[in-house]
C-alpha cells in the first residue's frame, strides 16, 4: 500500500512537468521480422518536441533526449566460480527476476550531465538500475553480481549505452539510430523516450515494437513447444533419412 502511494506521488510529480511540452515520436519499424537470413536490423527513432496543446508559450531549448529500448524480460542468474581444492566450480549464484533480455540507452549527451543519478535510477535509465530491484538480505552480494551480469550482457551486445546515439537535426527535431543484434531475443520491445530540460523530465513517450520470427522459423519455434513429441519424432526421422541418403549419395 505504501509502495502504491509512493508510486502515485511519483506519477503525480511527472504529470506536472516543468514546461508544457509534448513529444511526437515514431519508430521506423513497428515489427522486426526474423527470417532465415536474419543478421540484425537497423532501427530509427525520431521525433519532435512541440508545445503542449493549448499552450501559447513557445518552447525553447536546449533539450536533451534519452531513448531507452527494453526487450522482453527473463529470469536470469549470475554465477561466480571459485577455486575449491584446486578445482574451479560455480559456488555463488544470484537470481534476477524479470531482468530485461535487451537494454540499450541512446542519449544526446553524457547521462550524468543530462540529469542527476536519482532520476536516472528511478526511471531505470541506467543498466545497473535493473539489478537493484532484487530484494535480498545480502544486498552487497547482489550488487556485485548485478554489476557482473550487466558486464556479461554488454559483452554479448545485449546491453549498451550510447551517449552520442541521439542527434538533434534542429532545436526540437531529433533522430536516433539503433542496430538490433542478431541475438536480440524475440518478443515485445518497448522504446521509452524522455525529453530533459535543465535536468528535469519535461515530456515522455513510449512506443512498442515487436521482434518476432515469421514464416518457417516461426513454424519451427512454435511446433517445438506446442507439439514437442511430434517435433522430436520428425527430428529423428530427418536424421535417419539424412544418414541413409548420405550413405546412398557418397557410396563408393
Amino acid at each position, binding site marked *: 500500500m505504501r509502495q502504491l502511494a509512493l508510486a502515485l506521488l511519483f506519477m503525480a510529480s511527472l504529470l506536472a512537468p516543468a514546461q508544457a511540452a509534448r513529444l511526437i515520436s515514431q519508430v521506423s519499424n513497428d515489427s522486426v521480422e526474423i527470417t532465415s537470413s536474419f543478421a540484425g536490423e537497423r532501427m530509427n527513432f525520431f521525433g519532435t518536441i512541440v508545445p503542449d496543446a493549448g499552450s501559447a508559450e513557445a518552447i525553447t531549448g536546449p533539450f536533451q533526449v534519452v531513448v531507452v529500448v527494453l526487450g522482453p524480460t527473463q529470469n536470469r542468474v549470475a554465477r561466480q566460480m571459485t577455486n575449491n581444492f584446486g578445482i574451479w566450480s560455480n559456488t555463488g549464484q544470484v537470481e534476477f527476476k524479470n531482468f530485461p533480455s535487451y537494454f540499450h540507452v541512446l542519449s544526446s549527451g553524457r547521462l550524468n550531465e543530462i540529469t542527476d543519478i536519482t532520476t536516472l535510477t528511478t526511471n531505470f535509465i541506467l543498466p545497473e538500475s535493473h539489478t537493484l530491484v532484487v530484494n535480498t538480505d545480502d544486498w552487497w552480494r547482489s550488487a556485485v553480481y548485478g554489476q557482473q551480469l550487466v558486464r556479461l550482457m554488454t559483452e554479448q551486445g545485449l546491453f549498451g549505452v550510447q551517449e552520442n546515439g541521439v542527434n538533434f537535426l534542429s532545436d526540437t527535431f531529433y533522430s536516433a539510430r539503433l542496430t538490433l543484434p542478431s541475438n536480440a531475443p524475440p518478443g515485445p520491445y518497448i522504446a521509452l523516450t524522455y525529453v530533459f530540460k535543465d535536468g528535469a523530465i519535461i515530456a515522455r513517450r513510449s512506443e512498442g515494437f515487436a521482434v518476432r520470427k515469421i514464416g518457417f522459423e*516461426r513454424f519451427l519455434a512454435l511446433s517445438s513447444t506446442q507439439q514437442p513429441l511430434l517435433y522430436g519424432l520428425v527430428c529423428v526421422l530427418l*536424421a535417419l533419412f*539424412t*544418414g541413409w541418403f*548420405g550413405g546412398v*549419395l*557418397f557410396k563408393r
Partner: protein
Amino acid sequence: MQIYLPIAEMSVNLFFLVGIGGAVGFLSGLFGVGGGFLLTPLLIFSGVPVPVAVASVTGQVVAASTSGALAHYRRGAVDLHLAMYLVLSGVLGAFGGVAVFALLRDAGQLDLVISLGFLILLGSVGTLMLVESTRAILKQRKGIVVRERLPNQHNWIHGLPMRVRFKKSRLYISVLPVLVIGLFIGFVGSLLGVGGGFIMVPALVYLLRVPGNVVIGTSLAQVVAMMAATTILHAVQSQSVDILLAFCLMVGGTAGAQFGASAGKYLRGEQLRGLLALLVLAVAIRFGLSLVIAPSDLFSMAVVGGRQ
C-alpha cells in the same frame, strides 16, 4: 552465409556448421564413435547455448551414426541381437540421465559435472586403449602372431548366469553385463550429451570380448537407436532441440562419415584404437585443464525457468 537458428535464437555461419559437422563426421565414421564428445564442446565454444548444443548434437549423432551403421551393416558387421539388449537398457538409462541433467542445470553445476565426467571417463578409457593398442602394435612389430581370440581369455563376466547366445559375435555369455553396460552408457551418454561410443567400443572389446569386426558396427547401431530415443526425450523435456542446427550438422556429418568409414578400411584395428585413444585423451586433458586453470571470466550467466 549466415543462417538464423530458431531455437538457439542466434545466427551462425552456415559453412562453419557444415564444416565442423563434416570434420567430426569423418572421425565418427573412422572410429565408430558418435562424435558428440567433440561436437558438443565445439558448439558451446562458438556461443550456442549449452542445452541447445547438447540436445541438437544428439540429433546429429543419429544421422552421422546411421550412415556409418548402414555401411557396416552391408559388410555384415552388426550384431543386431546384441545391439537390441544394449538399446533396451540404454533407453532406461537415458531417462535417468535426462532427469539428472535438468536437476544439475538448475543448480548451476552442469558444467562442473560435465567436465569431471569427461575427464574421468575419457581419461581412463583413453589411457587403457592407448596402452592396449600400443602393446598390440609393438607385439606385431616383433613378429608375434596375435590371434583374434584365445579360448582361455574368458574372465569372470563370462561366468554369470542367464546366458544368451549371440551368433554374430560368436559369444555365449550372460545378458547381465550387457544390460549393465547399456544402462550405464544410456545414463552417461544423455547426461554428457554424447553417444557413448567411446565407452561402448572398449566395453565390448575388453569386457565382453566381442570380436573386432563387429564391435564398431554394433556400437554404431546401438548409438543410432539410443540417441534417437534421447533426441525425443530432450525435445519433449527441455524443448531445446534445434532442428535447423541439427540438420546443418547432419549434412556435413553424413558426408564425412562415409569418407571416414572408407578410410577406416586402410587402417588396422589396433591402429584405429590407438588413434582414437589419442583423440579421447586430448579431449580429457582439455577438460581437465578447464577445471584447474583459472577461468578467464569468473562470472557467467544463464536464463532460468525455461524459454518463454
